[in-house]
């Protein structure tokens, strides 16, 4: 095999591509990864990691400001150093990029810098920054090119005025007033973080609640916290018009209200990053840019796979990694379908963790369910550490008890949800979860209690009240 011939080539080095590359190498394949920008892709450079670094400082700030609740007095002004916070974040990113590079070297994965373009089903031309090209051939190709933030057509393109999360994570200075368009995960995380750094934040969401894709009560609870803190939220609302002046940006929201801000952050979603790959050269059609795949991540073109954001199945880093492993296992003859549940995590404070079926989906799909819920504030640990906000909700199948979904908001929810993900992934029942021994005192105990409540067996809740209500009727 010559230097430009590989068993598997990944296009993109995000959490899909780099994990797939390591897996393929572990299975003994000769592997190359093509990356046109930064190693680690969106997750490492423009998504998960930088946002968490900035949120960590914001959350500490929030805690220091509420330190008196735990009997700590902080004298003098609590200040933060934005450039220093940014430098710390950049250091974290550099360290992680180095880590990925180190793993590549340890497993002899070849990294090719440049833009990938299909020339045939197993030939890819890589165009480097200096416009020189190299052609590589591969038995199997995995498209892992990810996604980019969606922009709103017709709106200003100057990132100093209207920007996306890509820009906002690397801001040199903070705006005074910010309009966030979109109350999904990205919008909520930025709102939570920037509010703590003193930015006056307004969130406008077109749908009736924040986090519209998740269990409705989570978005409602978060909206309640945000509003108390002074973040302005407008749901079922749309930015009708945007007027950019030298001094400020004026946004007209549906209903006629006018908001004046210094910057606008568009967080309405992400679109697939597949336009530059020359997919038409191999006859690969896309569906609004997404490359459709089956449960083994196979595209209609033999030997070509697509994983992560680019296939549009689930735009989450950990889904991309799992899909990457599935794709290369199939490519190297160990194929199996990927059908495991994918948890969602929102890193606001309080955090949100969610996995499986929501009550809304249960209603839409007419699945008979029972629901259990436990307030985190009832737990000893929650009171002791002063983290009483939030709840865990468990959705189980009404007939066979199977755990269908677990949804929670509260401190450390993104960590605690892993226990529920593991249980749902092993097809456990609510009784299985309820019977587990959870360490005491922990916040995770709420998961066990909520599972028990779904069976009406929670011990730390009073029995459900018997209430009589008269139905309403119409003609």
């Amino acid at each position, binding site marked *: 095999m010559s230097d430009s011939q590989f068993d598997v080539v990944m296009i993109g080095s995000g959490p899909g591509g780099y994990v797939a590359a390591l897996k393929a190498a572990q299975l003994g394949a000769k592997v190359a990864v093509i990356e046109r920008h930064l190693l680690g892709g969106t997750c490492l450079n423009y998504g998960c990691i930088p946002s968490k670094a900035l949120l960590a400082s914001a959350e500490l700030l929030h805690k220091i400001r509420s330190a008196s609740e735990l009997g700590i007095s902080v004298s003098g002004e609590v200040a933060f150093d934005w450039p220093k916070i940014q430098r710390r974040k950049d250091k974290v990113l550099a360290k992680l990029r180095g880590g990925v590079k180190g793993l590549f070297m340890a497993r002899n994965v070849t990294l090719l810098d440049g833009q990938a373009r299909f020339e045939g089903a197993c030939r890819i031309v890589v165009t480097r920054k200096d416009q020189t090209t190299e052609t590589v051939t591969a038995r199997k190709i995995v498209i892992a090119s990810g996604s980019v933030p969606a922009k709103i057509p017709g709106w200003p393109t100057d990132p100093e005025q209207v920007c996306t999360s890509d820009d906002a994570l690397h801001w040199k200075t903070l705006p005074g007033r910010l309009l966030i368009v979109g109350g999904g995960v990205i919008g909520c995380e930025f709102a939570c973080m920037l509010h703590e750094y003193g930015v006056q934040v307004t969130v406008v969401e077109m749908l009736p609640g924040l986090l519209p*894709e998740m269990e409705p009560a989570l978005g409602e609870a978060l909206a309640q916290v945000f509003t108390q803190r002074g973040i302005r939220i407008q749901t079922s609302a749309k930015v009708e018009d945007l007027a950019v002046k030298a001094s400020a940006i004026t946004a007209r929201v549906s209903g006629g209200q006018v908001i004046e801000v210094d910057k606008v952050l568009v967080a309405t979603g992400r679109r697939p990053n597949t336009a530059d790959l020359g997919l038409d050269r191999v006859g690969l059609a896309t569906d609004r840019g997404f490359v459709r795949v089956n449960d083994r991540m196979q595209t209609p073109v033999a030997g070509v796979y697509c994983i992560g954001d680019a296939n549009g199945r689930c735009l989450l880093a950990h889904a991309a990694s799992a899909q990457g492993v599935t794709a290369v296992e199939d490519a190297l003859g160990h194929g199996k379908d990927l059908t495991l549940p994918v948890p969602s995590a929102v890193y606001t404070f309080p955090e949100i963790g969610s996995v499986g079926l929501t009550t809304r989906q249960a209603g839409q799909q007419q699945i008979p369910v029972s629901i259990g819920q436990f307030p985190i504030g009832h737990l000893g640990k929650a009171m002791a550490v002063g983290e009483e906000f939030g709840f865990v909700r468990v959705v189980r199948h009404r007939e066979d008890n199977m755990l269908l979904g677990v949804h929670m908001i509260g401190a450390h929810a993104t960590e605690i949800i892993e226990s529920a993900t593991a249980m749902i992934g092993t*097809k456990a029942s609510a009784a299985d979860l309820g019977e587990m021994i959870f360490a005491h005192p922990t916040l995770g105990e709420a998961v066990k209690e909520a599972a028990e409540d779904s069976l009406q067996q929670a011990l730390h809740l009073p029995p459900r009240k018997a209430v009589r209500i008269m139905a309403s009727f119409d003609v």
Partner: protein
Amino acid sequence: MHTIRLPKDKALVGPLVMAGWLKKEGQAISPTESIAQIEAIGAQVELQGGASGTILKILVRPGQVVEPDQPLCIIGEAGQDASKVASGLTKSEPQRPEAQTVAKVTSGQVIPILMPQAGQTMEEGTLVAWKVKEGDRIAVGQVIFDIETDKATMEVEATDAGRIARIVVQEGQVVPVKTPVAYLAEKDADVDAYLAVQGAGDRTQNSEDKGEEPEARSQKPEDRRQRTEDGGRVKASPAARKLATQKGVDMTAIGAGSGPGGRILSTDVASAKAGVTAPKGESLSKMRLAIARNLLWSKQNIPHFYAKRVVEAQALFATYRKTKEQFKCTLNDFVTAACARAIRELPAFRSQFKDNTIVEFPAVNIGIAVGTDEGLTVPVVLNADRMGMQELAQKTRQVVESARSGKLEGVGQGIFTITNMGMFGIEEFLAIINPPESAILAVGAIQETVKVQDGNILPTRNMTLCLSVDHRVIDGIMSAQFLNRVKELLENPEQLVHC
């Protein structure tokens, strides 16, 4: 007619679930009578009727998630038709906007490809191999997959043209006839929409699932094997163990559970029968069913009798050793050749009992019993009496290999079967006739022994042949003639090699 709705009430802290109806359709209700139970967070709500009338139509089922103001049932005078009101209600219900990252594509035409019914008795078939994959375009008449029934393996041709959008039955799965095995559609999303309408995949566990495969049994033996690990520990959930103890269910008897890796879940225990010694049940493959049916019929309907003859195999063994390189033959090929010769000479062994007559067949077609992982199969070597040793060996090898890979040759044309357990060290055994044939020869292992000749003890080798015959066709004297002729040929194997 009135529509009874869930009221907006402070006690109704959502999410709310319809726990159950206390009244049925056709029953009368009064305003203060309780009609249903609703589960709320922290409360068990009894819902009173609010109005008087007869329940004409119930609109929500137990377990359904409900919201304040949602219509629950329609009441009126007994005998009124509520279907119009009901359909009006479901249409006018405000739809929540679909908050999906990926927009649903408008539904195009979707054509299911079905497991065909090949023959009137076929109830289910095994999908052996796909000849196309997802994304392929197929034309009418193109072979798209192979199936196996209890009778045969066959190719299935497409009756519609289009693009294979989704394959839902994988290789090795058994599904009833007329079950969709794949879907033709231009866009994958159309299939999702189609399946949603069909009500498939309604147990979807997460938003990423793309509709579950129809229930299908896998024929791979490892899938059905009971998972016990490290010292026979059964993989089971704690709740399953507890329930099993309560019910007195033996977990090892349940077999593989429905959880990942065959883990036994409480639902598996719930459906298992109690009893510590409960035997392990396993539904039969097509092949095992056919074996069961044929052999039971044979034992019940054919009057078997048996005759045994020991053959001195010293010369045979020596000849085999000498010629096996040249002819690439096995010991069994010598037995086949000897039987072929004897059958040609004794027409009774080419005859079958049929409707109170005995039918004689001209061709000496010999079946060779082959054990495979799935069961017993009998490929047939046609006209075995007309072949030299080399050709016979080559032909036998070919039909046996085909049988092992699932393709049976000469089905229904055999007139005699040879079954050999010598390679397993079995000294002698009695076989069941393979109907409609009239005889079967069971061949035992060649064993070293001694013989007394002229007062001297000499080392030699013996092999035992046991013949099972249909007494309606073959009598004792004929079976003796046959065995003696076969013995003569095997003890003088040069006659078999040079002919």
